[in-house]
């Protein structure tokens, strides 16, 4: 066994419903493992220091900055990325609302913003403006001024309430 291989370890978790085992350096960032080892490039690296939220994913249902999570911490965890949210055909209701309301411009913040919206709506299915501002406060957007994003969140909250469901 080479020295390099010796310093690696195996980490197992569930990503978007599928069990995966990766051979990684223990302190690799979850973001890099998702993007480079698993080919899930939806989560973006913005600042790489936990400020911008463009790498947001759900870890056991909690919104985390995957650039700040050592992969070892994901052992046994259930992960959901933007790819897991997207159905085989069509769009997730949150994605559809962002499209309808113009909630995305350049698109770099969008995967993280959508993950944050999903988590926000799980906590507050019909959120107030203050709850939306607070829920998306860790996700920076340079293009939209957030206004169209707020519209998108209210749009999906309204359509889901009318359907009698909640954002899954």
């Amino acid at each position: 066994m080479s020295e390099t291989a010796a310093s690696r370890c195996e980490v197992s978790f569930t990503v978007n419903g599928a069990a995966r085992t990766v051979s990684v350096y223990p302190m690799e960032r979850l973001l890099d493992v998702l993007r480079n080892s698993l080919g899930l490039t939806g989560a973006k690296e913005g600042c790489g220091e936990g400020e911008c939220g463009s790498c947001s994913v759900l870890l056991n249902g909690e919104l985390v900055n995957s650039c700040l999570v050592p992969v070892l911490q994901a052992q046994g965890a259930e992960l959901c990325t933007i790819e897991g949210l997207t159905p085989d055909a069509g769009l997730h209701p949150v994605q559809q609302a962002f499209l309808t309301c113009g909630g995305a411009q350049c698109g770099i913040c969008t995967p993280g913003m959508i993950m944050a919206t999903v988590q926000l709506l799980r906590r507050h299915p019909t959120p107030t403006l203050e709850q939306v501002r607070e829920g998306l406060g860790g996700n920076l957007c340079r293009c939209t001024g957030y206004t169209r994003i707020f519209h998108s969140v209210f749009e999906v909250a309204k359509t889901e309430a009318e359907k009698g469901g909640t954002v899954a």
Partner: protein
Amino acid sequence: MNALVGLEATPAGGVRVLVSSTDIGQGTNTILSQIAAEALGLEYDDVSMAPADTSTVPNSGPTVASRTAMIIGKIVHTAALKMRQTLTESGLLEPSAGREEFLAACQTYRQRFGELKCFSRYEAAPNIFWNDELYRGEAYPAYAWAVYIAEVTVDTNTYSVTIDDFVALQEIGKVLHPVLATGQIEGGVAQGIGFALYEKVVWNDGKMLNNQMTNYIMPTSEDLPPIRVFFEEMPYQYGPYGAKGIGELPMDGPAPAIVNAIVQATGTSFNAIPLLPEDIFRVLTAEPDRPAEDFFSALAAEGSQ
């Protein structure tokens, strides 16, 4: 400003726009497709954008200066008219023909002549003169206009500023896509608010000291006021369907509006931005004969006595 734009009939049965103007989120792919579809009598979905790769698209000039909608949009429009003209002159299309006939004529033309590509070059509006060799003159014949109004509260304990309301009234000739146009202005205003109140670049020996999102602070979803956007339309005759540029103006006006509101609130004038609480504190508490900027040198001078 030299610029060449193309349109081509695709083997898949639609039309493709050939420009090097790049969509970086401002929505130009959408509006250029809208313009081409409208001028050709097609549906929006019949039109696609070629990737902005200059090995396959002509040089339509830089994506700068709020020029893409007004300048490139207009050339897309004239290229579309040329495409219809090419088909009518070849006898394949009646001038009054609709969408199906047009798409069928494109395919017949392709089978007969190999390809159908039409190009159009920028022509300056008659009332301006630009010298491309010296790069001098009037680059653009018309500009957008706007009014920005900020309502602010200055906390006299913490010296922080809250923007309570912000209104942008924008005259851009013709609004080509209301959602995208509103979004462009809201986003520009948000950047202008960061410019006015948060985004301070700290230099040391030619290097930026605070070059991280941790210490260079831009507005978050919790920092911005409602940004209310209104349009005034005065169609500009040399823009596509009357449209003018839109990109930059929303970043130019908000900071002056916000500073003027702070001046009115405090009765004190400020000559720099951004105005962080410490900047407002320094100005409002400065002793008239001892400028705040000299505080440390004054301290040093006292110490040496």
